[in-house]
């Protein structure tokens, strides 16, 4: 039986299966696990983990990440949000009187990389009709140079695909143990929903990799997470 974190890692791995170079930011152990899973499956994927404690990839400091992304040398990135709305705007700054850490590189990375929005909490508190502060916009007018943007939203309950033309999410699949009605109830924005599947469980082979080489690769940089999920 897969743990929820394992299901999410295998789901994200499928979403970014065509990636060549993925960057993974702070506090993103599940996306990092997804990348390590692809590598463990033999994909020639370059994974740039920004907070790698040993063997950090940058020799020009952390600004090198943004220079790489600005040139288009990174194809996928992950972003979350204290709030995410139906137009894929994300808010990492403040909501309902609460202060959150801040926008990090989101206002730049969202423009440069294909972005998987990822937030485990799936509630009306997080998935709102309109974010209170736009850290990074989900879409831009046609005259704004923008190579990247959202491709999907992954939560602890479901997978939504982003429809760029409609500027709307579409519910793609619901994770085992959850229902489409529950997702509708827990989502504060409107979205399309047709032919909703169940999110596939990780295969036995994927689970074996997750619990072996992936767990070991993750533990060095996300020790708390690795202990919680895999010990």
């Amino acid at each position, binding site marked *: 039986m897969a743990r929820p974190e394992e299901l999410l890692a295998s789901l994200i791995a499928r979403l970014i299966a065509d990636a060549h170079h993925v960057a993974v930011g702070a506090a993103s152990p599940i996306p990092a696990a997804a990348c390590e899973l692809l590598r463990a499956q033999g994909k020639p994927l370059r994974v740039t983990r920004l907070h790698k404690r040993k063997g950090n990839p940058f020799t020009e400091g952390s*600004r090198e990440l943004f220079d790489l992304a*600005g040139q288009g040398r990174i194809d996928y990135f992950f972003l979350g949000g204290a709030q995410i709305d139906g137009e894929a705007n994300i808010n990492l700054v403040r909501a309902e009187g*609460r*202060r959150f850490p*801040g926008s990090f*590189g989101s*206002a730049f990375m969202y423009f440069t990389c294909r972005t998987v929005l990822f937030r485990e909490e799936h509630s009306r508190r997080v998935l709102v009709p309109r974010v209170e*502060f736009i850290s990074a916009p989900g879409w831009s007018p046609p005259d*704004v140079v923008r190579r990247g943007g959202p491709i999907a939203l992954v939560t602890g309950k479901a997978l939504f695909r982003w429809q760029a033309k409609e500027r709307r999410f579409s519910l793609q699949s619901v994770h085992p143990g959850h229902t489409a009605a529950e997702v509708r109830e827990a989502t504060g924005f409107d979205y399309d929903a047709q032919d909703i599947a169940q999110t596939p469980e990780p295969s036995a082979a994927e689970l074996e990799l997750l619990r072996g080489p992936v767990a070991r690769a993750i533990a060095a940089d996300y*020790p708390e997470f690795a202990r919680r999920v895999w010990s």
Partner: protein
Amino acid sequence: MSGVDALVAQIPDGAFVALPPDYSLPAMDAVRALIRRRAKNLRLLGVPVLGLSADLLIGAGCVAEVHSSAVSLGEAGLAPRFTEAAERGEIKVVDYTCPAVHTALQATEKGVPYMPLRGVLGSDLVGAHSDWQVAQNPFSPSKDPILLVAAIVPDVALFHARWADEAGNVWVGRRRELATIAHAARHTYVTVEEFRAGDMLDDELLAPGVISATYVTGVARAERGAWPLGVADVYGIDDAHLTAYAKAARTREGFDNYLREFVWQDRKSSLPA
């Protein structure tokens, strides 16, 4: 007065102080010394984000403003003193996005008034910054709005390094954002793990990780001076301490107890927490 205390005595109240993130050689002993000297109204600049150093200074009442792309303790969670002070309006918070901080400092490095940066347009950050403007790309025949970010000049850069040498150079290895801060700041103060003989610029292997003495205003020895954060290949991050801090600092009382134990007592960082 210890070397570190004498070093931070040169940082005046109200200074605009550029600090690195927790992963990039924060001068934690100097931060503790700033608290002990009861620094006031500091304006912190996160390059590009901040963590424990800022949370300690904010909780201890040393800070008036925080300019940063984020303040967090990473895997240990929210920075509790920052969060409470921001929610209560006790500090002014100026939100950035990481590459805008780097770009603004790079403008200062080059001595130009601003630099352009792609992306960001449509973010509410743009309207909140009088030091940013959206302009037409003058080289494009079609409509092409682009963000211009004004140069930032910190009064002070403060960070830790592995070595300082007899020539006054410091070695930060791959942490080159520290070079950017040093190049941009009016004064750069550095604590170091160790002094070493000679001139590191004479060593081809060391030279790429050196910040030249040209940029360095003052140096003081602080062994294990980044603790509870780490120095690559010397000592790692004290995760258990960070977790304990994140928990203690959730309340005012817990934070004050922490300060009593680890800041006012100047408890040696080489001792286990």
